[in-house]
């Protein structure tokens, strides 16, 4: 129904939630914050990409990956490799014994660019790789695991191990990767200096744009039958299987989707922060990404965005004022979000704020009432995200009937 009449959709309750987020990110924050702070918000947003992926993958389909940092990192490194090559022109690196290759390669006695760096001279290839590389890895992992029915804790632990492996590899192979320092001193994107305030502000808006793109992709998936299958799979895997679905294929798909989102996020991260290093790939980084999703509400793609924003904002807030408290707060957050409010902010919003809204919405949207009984407290923002499933006015079913 979105495609049929987009304007009508923006007037719906769900539409308004998206508009609200857009206003916050595109208008309020840029007005309220100086470039320095805005840039930090941009950085937080890059994590929101990962969180959205986790909502689809963990919240909906019940696949918990503790290795999302891997995909985030791969996306980021792809972008970083392109920028680094652009920064290491023969002129800029004249002092090196081998001009024209990244400085860290020179220090490690590499006399020519490794083969796998070559393609990253091309921007279009880089853009492809930013999504392609993470998705490819995700596919390999997913295929190996899901066709063999690996899930739950096993999957979590294995993805975590993969994060560990990749970190050790990158740090160890510093001649090819920049090692523990990562790929630093990135300056221009196709000749455009990304370090100026203007550039940073522009990049922020690009990031917001990409974010909404991912949001709508995620939303499309969740509102189609595909989304229903994912949720159904989580609850009744066998029933889905014996309704004739290849469960593994669906899991692989959603895992790859999450990887793709993470990859885009990583690339934006590199552009906004100006470098990439292994510390964003490892176990700790990866598991922190899960909390962004959990806090926002593991079933709510919009919640994920707020989750990522809040946790990171809190993190830098704490580390500025009382650093030693931050780990306690973070730990409490993990425990609380699991024990006290498993559906995160979205859940709280749905229980406490939603009823107020209902009063407002009653008048103009009678359909909502019809939908109400269908909602259970378990579902965050049901009106926002589930209504299309339940609301006969929206699907083409009841019209046929009448």
């Amino acid at each position, binding site marked *: 129904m979105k495609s049929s009449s987009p304007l009508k959709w923006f007037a719906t309750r769900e539409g308004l939630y998206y508009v609200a987020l857009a206003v916050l990110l595109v208008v309020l924050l840029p007005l309220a914050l100086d470039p320095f702070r805005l840039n930090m918000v941009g950085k937080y947003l890059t994590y929101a990409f990962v969180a959205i992926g986790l909502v689809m993958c963990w919240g909906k389909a019940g696949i918990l990956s503790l290795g999302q940092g891997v995909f985030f990192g791969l996306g980021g490194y792809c972008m970083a490799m392109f920028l680094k090559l652009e920064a290491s022109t023969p002129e800029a690196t004249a002092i090196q014994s081998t001009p024209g290759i990244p400085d860290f390669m020179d220090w490690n006695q590499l006399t020519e660019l490794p083969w796998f760096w070559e393609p990253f001279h091309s921007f279009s290839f880089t853009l492809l790789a930013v999504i392609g590389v993470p998705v490819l890895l995700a596919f390999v992992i997913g295929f190996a695991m899901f066709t063999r029915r690996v899930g739950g804790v096993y999957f979590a632990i294995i993805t975590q191990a993969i994060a560990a492996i990749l970190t050790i590899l990158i740090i160890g192979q510093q001649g090819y990767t920049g090692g523990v320092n990562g790929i630093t001193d990135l300056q221009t994107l196709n000749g455009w200096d990304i370090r100026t305030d203007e550039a940073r502000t522009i990049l922020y808006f690009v990031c917001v744009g990409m974010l909404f793109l991912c949001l709508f992709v995620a939303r499309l998936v969740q509102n189609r039958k595909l989304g229903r299958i994912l949720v159904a799979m989580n609850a009744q895997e066998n029933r889905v299987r014996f309704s004739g679905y290849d469960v593994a294929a669906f899991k692989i798909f959603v895992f790859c989707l999450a990887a793709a989102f993470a990859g885009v996020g990583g690339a934006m991260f590199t552009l906004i922060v100006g470098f990439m290093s292994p510390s964003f790939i490892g176990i700790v980084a990866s598991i922190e990404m899960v909390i962004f999703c959990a806090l926002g509400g593991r079933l709510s793609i919009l919640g994920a965005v707020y989750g990522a924003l809040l946790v990171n904002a809190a993190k830098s807030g704490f580390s*500025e004022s009382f650093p030693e408290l931050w780990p306690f707060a973070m730990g409490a957050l993990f425990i609380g979000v699991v024990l006290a409010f498993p559906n995160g902010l979205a859940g709280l919003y749905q229980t406490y704020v939603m009823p107020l809204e209902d009063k407002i919405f009653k008048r103009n949207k009678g359909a909502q009432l019809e939908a109400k009984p269908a909602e259970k407290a378990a579902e965050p923002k049901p009106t926002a995200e589930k209504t299309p499933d339940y609301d006969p006015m929206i699907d083409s079913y009841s019209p046929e009937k009448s």
Partner: protein
Amino acid sequence: MDTTDQAANGRSFGKGLGLKKSLMTLAASVMLATSAQAAVPATAEVNTTGLAVTDDTVTVGILHSITGTMAISEIGSVQAEKLAIDQINASGGVLGRQIEFVQEDGASDWPTFAEKSRKLLRQDNVAAIFGAWTSASRKAVLPVIEQYNGMLYYPTFYEGLEQSPNVVYTGQEATQQILASIDWAAETKGAKSFYLLGSDYIWPRTSNKIARKHIEDKLGLKVSGEEYYPLGHTQFNSVINKIKLRKPDVIFASVVGGSNVAFYKQMKAAGIDFTDEKPLLLTISVTEDEIRGIGGENVDGIYASMKYFQSLDNPNNKEFVAAFKEAYGDDMVIGDVTQAAYLGPWLWKAAVEKAGSFDIDKIREEFAGIEFTKAPEGYVRIHENHHLWSKTRIGQAQPDGQYKVVYETEELMEPDPFPEGYQ
């Protein structure tokens, strides 16, 4: 200049310092009062680039990790930098201006370092930044510092391969630390074969690369093995066996962090007694700070190559150690990096006063040849390449966790961040 000279300088400086704090501050205030009317140059002259300089204050930034995994290592540097600033203020400040500092937490997270350095330069307009510890954090702030033309005073001994017009490296670069120590091992200990062992990241790898070149090409000796273990690795039995197999004369170790503890404990347990020096263990990564965690009895007898040891026997150092302990408690230990961090503010002061201005560009002109005669390590001078001329010492670890200095280079070692023939 020769050592007696140094000592003399040391003493003359020392008098002011040796006094009780109260007296010092009193003295300082007097000096201020007087200088306030007389010799204080107008702010407009000394600050043409909009730095945070007023008629009686100048603001600098301190940027280290107070939280996270690196906090343990960086805290010493923060203390040293603050101590230096206090002392400078007590002795009249810089160009008659008291130093105020903004401290930011890098939180052991490199992007945070970059952000905070940007904040310090853009919002606080600090006249200098004392900070960064790991190579990763330095690499992260470097583009920012260069973009906004700030000046970073970086305390850690590091791998070299860098020479930024916006950084002063107050620690040693790899060659200074390594070459002398290997020569020493070869000459005085008659070492013929070396086993290179390190944690797996850029500093150990680069250091060992330089070491290998020196051992094989310059000295014509043998490298009997080279090994790297992931950061945080805790099982070293296999490499210990390899060492026993290859029987090197020297184990040249650059293991860091928690791995250190495991490594030395397991070496000791494997029946290797460092005191009888078969093999001799020479490290470039274990300062007095680390020994605290490892336990003195576990490193008894190892040799370390640094430019500074807390036990250095010269008046500058005695006063420095006394002041440091007075400020932060008697159980404090002072490692190489802590001392290097202490040099930062003093070198900056010297440069500013020589340039007669806080402007970064003017200071940069003057760096070459700036000297600091009351450095705890004795005497340092800034080289054209923004690194320090400094002596290299070999210390032997004692059970009490201190080093006994057994050797120091005759001359100051020339810093050479891009050593010819070592890359």
